[in-house]
C-alpha cells in the first residue's frame, strides 16, 4: 500500500511540466497550426467551388457551341437547298429558251427555204418558157403566131404549175 502513494514532488513536477507544455502549445504552437488548418480548409473549399464554377461554365459553352453548330448546319443546308433551287430554275429557263430559239430558227429556216423555193420556181418557170419556145422553134422550124405561142406556153405552164402544187 505504501508503494502506491505518490511522491509529493512527482505530483508537483508533473503539474508544472503539464502547465509549461500547455502554455507552449496554447500560445506558440497551436495558433499557427489552427490557422493553417483553417486556411487549407478554406483554400480547398474555394478550389472546389472554383472547379464547380469552371465546370458549369464549360458546360454552358459546350451547349452554346453545340447550338451554334446546329444553327450553322441548318444554315448551310438552307443555302445549299436555295442554290439547288436557283440552279434548277436556271436550268429550266435555259432549256426553255433553247427550245424556243430552236423552234424559231427552224421556223425561219423553213420560211427561207419556202421563199427560196418560190423564187427558184418562178425563175424556173420563166426559163422553162423561154427554153420551151426555143426548143419548139428548133423542132418545128417555123415560127408560130403570137397567139399560138401564147396558148402553147400557157398550156405548158399550167402543166408545169401543177407540179409546183404538190
Amino acid at each position, binding site marked *: 500500500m505504501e508503494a502506491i502513494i505518490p511522491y509529493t514532488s512527482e505530483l508537483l513536477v508533473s503539474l508544472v511540466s503539464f502547465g509549461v507544455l500547455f502554455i507552449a502549445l496554447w500560445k*506558440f504552437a*497551436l495558433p499557427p497550426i489552427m490557422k*493553417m488548418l483553417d486556411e487549407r480548409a478554406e483554400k480547398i473549399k474555394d478550389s472546389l467551388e472554383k472547379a464547380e464554377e469552371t465546370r458549369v461554365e464549360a458546360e454552358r459553352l459546350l451547349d452554346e457551341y453545340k447550338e451554334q453548330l446546329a444553327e450553322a448546319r441548318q444554315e448551310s443546308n438552307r443555302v445549299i437547298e436555295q442554290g439547288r433551287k436557283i440552279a434548277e430554275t436556271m436550268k429550266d429557263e435555259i432549256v426553255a429558251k433553247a427550245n424556243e430559239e430552236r423552234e424559231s430558227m427552224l421556223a425561219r429556216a423553213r420560211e427561207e427555204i419556202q421563199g427560196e423555193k418560190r423564187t427558184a420556181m418562178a425563175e424556173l418557170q420563166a426559163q422553162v418558157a423561154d427554153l420551151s419556145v426555143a426548143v419548139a422553134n428548133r423542132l418545128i422550124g417555123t415560127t408560130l403566131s403570137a397567139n399560138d405561142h401564147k396558148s402553147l406556153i400557157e398550156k405548158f405552164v399550167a402543166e408545169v404549175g401543177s407540179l409546183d402544187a404538190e
Partner: protein
Amino acid sequence: MDLGESIQELLHELQPFAVIGNNTGKTSLILTNYMVFLIIAIALTIVFFVVASRKLTLVPKGVGNIAEWGVEFVRNNIVLDVMGSEGMVYLPFIVTVFFAVLFNNFLGLIPGLKPGTGTLGTTFAWGIMVFVVYNWVGVKKHGLVPYLKSFLPSGTPWWLVWLIYPLEVISHFLRPFTLGVRLYANMYAGHIVLGIFGIFVVMSLAALGPVTAVVGTLSLVMQIIMYAFEVFVAFIQAYVFAILTTVYLNGALHTH
C-alpha cells in the same frame, strides 16, 4: 539468480527512486527517475510542436504535417465528436492532455527508458488536474449551487435523493483516481510483461539447452508481439485519457 529474484528485481526497478535529493519519505524534495523521463518527454513535445508550427506549408509535408495531423485528430475525433464546435475553446487543453500522455507513453517504449506516465505521481496529478478543470468550468457556467444540484440525475424520485446524491458525488470524486490508475496500470503492466519476457530470454540464453532454446525463442517472439501491442496501448491510453477529459468537460457544461 532464479526467476523469482529476477521478477522481484524487475518490480523494484519499476519503483520510483530519487535521482536528485535524499529520499526520506513520500513528501521529501526529490527528483525521481520518472520525473527525469517526464521532463524529457515534455521538452520533446514542446520542441516538436514549436518546430513543426514554424514549418507549416499550405501543401502539407514533413514534420509540420505530422503535427497538423495530430492536432486535427484531437480536434475532429475527440473535441468535435464529443462536444461539437463549442468544445473548440478547450482544444488547447485537450491537445495538451493528449500529447503529454502520448509522448510520455511513447518515450517509455524506447528500451532502457521509462514513461513519465509510469508512476502514479504523474497520472494521479493529471487526473486531479482534469477533475479541478472540469468542475471549475461547470461552476463558472452554471454557478456553484446550481452546478452542485445538477449532480443529481433529473427524474430521481425525492425519496431516493438521500441515496443517489452521495453516490453521484462519490462517482465524481472517483474520476481522478480512475483516470490516474487506468493510465498508470496500463503503462506499469505493459512494462512488467515486456520485462518478464525479457527475463525469460536472458535466462534461456544463460542456461542454453534444447528446452530453453525453444522457451527463449518463443519468449523473444512474444516480446516482439507484446512490444507492438504496447505501442497500440500507448496510443489508446492517450486517446482514452483525452476523450474522458472531454466527456467530463462536456458533462460539466451540459448538466442533466
